[in-house]
């Protein structure tokens, strides 16, 4: 019993190894996680609990392991955000509108996890239709941060981040349209990877903004995130990251006016990470990207228009079926003029050109994932010297640029402020996940040192 309890918070690769070596059975593991989920039920991490179906899958995985079968994730319980379709299991997208939808097919990512032998371990809570970052879901429960339940876990993949950070599953899947994997990972203290746009297929994933949506893993270690990336894409970035030397890599540390609105102790953590990387032989240089100032406006116009297109019919015929915040965003989205959308796309091109210029001189970019630590649930604004900023805008200000231009970005925990985790974000060129993971692993190692 004690060995399996200890394993629940272990890295996924260690769990998979223990299962292969038959030190623990999938059913023992599933039951241990089930007990933990029960104890943590007040956090509202799940919309649909793993239940008896997960136990049946665990028994089946146990038989396969006993017969000597192998699979990279055989018997490993992975939770998935409740906007990925799961065959025969309710998929709500965190909404009331889809409360009874039982898909007949799995989303592509779910199918790939199952093919690798994973046990789909419950459907995690999210901001309604993934359209927001507070994860205060009016239909399925307000999610709470496992480090301090009075604080938000962030979102929209908040349930997945809670489940990973609190040891309620081996790893989880999330989606990220403006920061929805990285923001909750940062606030809850786990690793979150948003790969290059298009690297992970989105068939069967309820959309939020077609040109911004990404899927990706939330995990306890960078190694686990790389391993899952391999399962989900066939990319060998995780393996290459382990062989990639980081010595001499050029790290651009973001500076400039955008950092005036970052809590000083959060900025200190990023500086500490950069200093530690310098001591390990990486070349640190300061970079400024003035175009990032336009991120919030560009993201807002683009996403409002795209999300409104997704919800075009429902927002007109049944607006009362949405929670107040999402309804307001969608109603306003219906008013976005075509000319404004074009304007935002032109600015997007300008952002892309700015990052292309930056990556001629650096190999990776380092910046905070979020400018603030986990906010108190219900807080609407952040106060800066220059004035107030809405909390939801602040939380995605440093993550959304990489949705707009599709660069791979990873959030890695690095230290704490006031007992709450801080995430450092590592970004690289398109399809250069190996470098993101290599630097992320080093930051992880330095954080533990």
């Amino acid at each position, binding site marked *: 019993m004690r060995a399996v309890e200890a394993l629940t918070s272990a890295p996924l690769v260690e769990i998979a190894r223990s299962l292969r070596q038959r030190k623990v059975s999938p059913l023992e593991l599933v039951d241990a996680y089930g007990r933990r989920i029960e104890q943590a039920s007040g956090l509202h991490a799940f919309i649909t609990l793993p239940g008896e179906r997960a136990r049946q899958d665990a028994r089946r995985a146990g038989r396969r392991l006993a017969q000597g079968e192998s699979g990279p994730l055989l018997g490993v319980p992975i939770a998935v955000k409740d906007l990925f379709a799961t065959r025969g299991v309710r998929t709500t997208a965190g909404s009331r509108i889809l409360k009874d939808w039982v898909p007949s097919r799995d989303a592509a990512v779910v199918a790939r996890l199952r093919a690798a032998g994973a046990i789909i371990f419950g459907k995690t809570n999210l901001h309604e239709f993934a359209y927001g970052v507070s994860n205060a879901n009016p239909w399925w429960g307000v999610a709470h941060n496992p480090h301090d339940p009075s604080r938000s876990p962030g979102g929209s993949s908040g349930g997945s981040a809670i489940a990973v950070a609190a040891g309620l599953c081996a790893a989880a899947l999330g989606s990220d349209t403006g920061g929805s994997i990285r923001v909750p990972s940062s606030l809850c203290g786990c690793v979150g990877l948003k790969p290059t746009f298009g690297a992970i297929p989105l068939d069967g994933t309820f959309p939020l903004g077609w040109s911004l949506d990404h899927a990706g893993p939330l995990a306890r270690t960078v190694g686990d995130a790389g391993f899952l990336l391999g399962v989900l894409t066939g990319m060998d970035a995780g393996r290459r990251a382990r062989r990639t030397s980081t010595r001499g890599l050029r790290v651009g540390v973001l500076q400039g006016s955008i950092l005036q609105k970052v809590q000083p102790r959060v900025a200190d953590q990023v500086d500490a990470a950069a200093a530690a990387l310098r001591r390990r032989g990486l070349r640190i240089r300061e970079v400024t990207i003035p175009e990032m100032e*336009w991120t*919030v*406006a*560009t993201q*807002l*116009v683009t996403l*409002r228009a795209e999300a409104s297109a997704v919800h075009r019919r429902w*927002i*007109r015929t049944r*607006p009362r079926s949405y929670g*107040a915040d999402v309804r*307001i*965003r969608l*109603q*306003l989205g*219906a*008013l976005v003029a075509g000319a*404004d959308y074009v*304007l*935002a796309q*032109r*600015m997007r091109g*300008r952002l892309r050109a700015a990052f292309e210029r930056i990556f001629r001189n650096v190999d990776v970019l380092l910046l905070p994932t979020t400018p603030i630590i986990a906010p108190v649930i219900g807080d609407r604004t952040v106060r800066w010297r220059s004035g107030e900023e809405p909390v939801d805008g602040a939380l995605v200000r440093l993550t959304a640029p990489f949705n707009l231009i599709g660069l791979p970005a990873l959030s890695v925990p690095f230290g704490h402020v006031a007992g709450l985790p801080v995430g450092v974000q590592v970004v690289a060129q398109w399809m250069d996940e190996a470098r993101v993971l290599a630097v992320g692993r080093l930051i992880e190692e330095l954080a533990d040192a």
Partner: protein
Amino acid sequence: MPVTEREELAAAGRAAGIRLTAREVADLLPAWKRYLGLVEELRAAMALEDWDEGG
């Protein structure tokens, strides 16, 4: 002809097929004004680029 911000927002809603109650208009107004402000900033930033390119 809409004359107040609220009337303008309600008219924009009607044009887009969105029926807004007076209460909803009041709820939407701050976010709508923020949106218009951000678009104006984007427009100004791009106008500068147009000028640069045009020169």
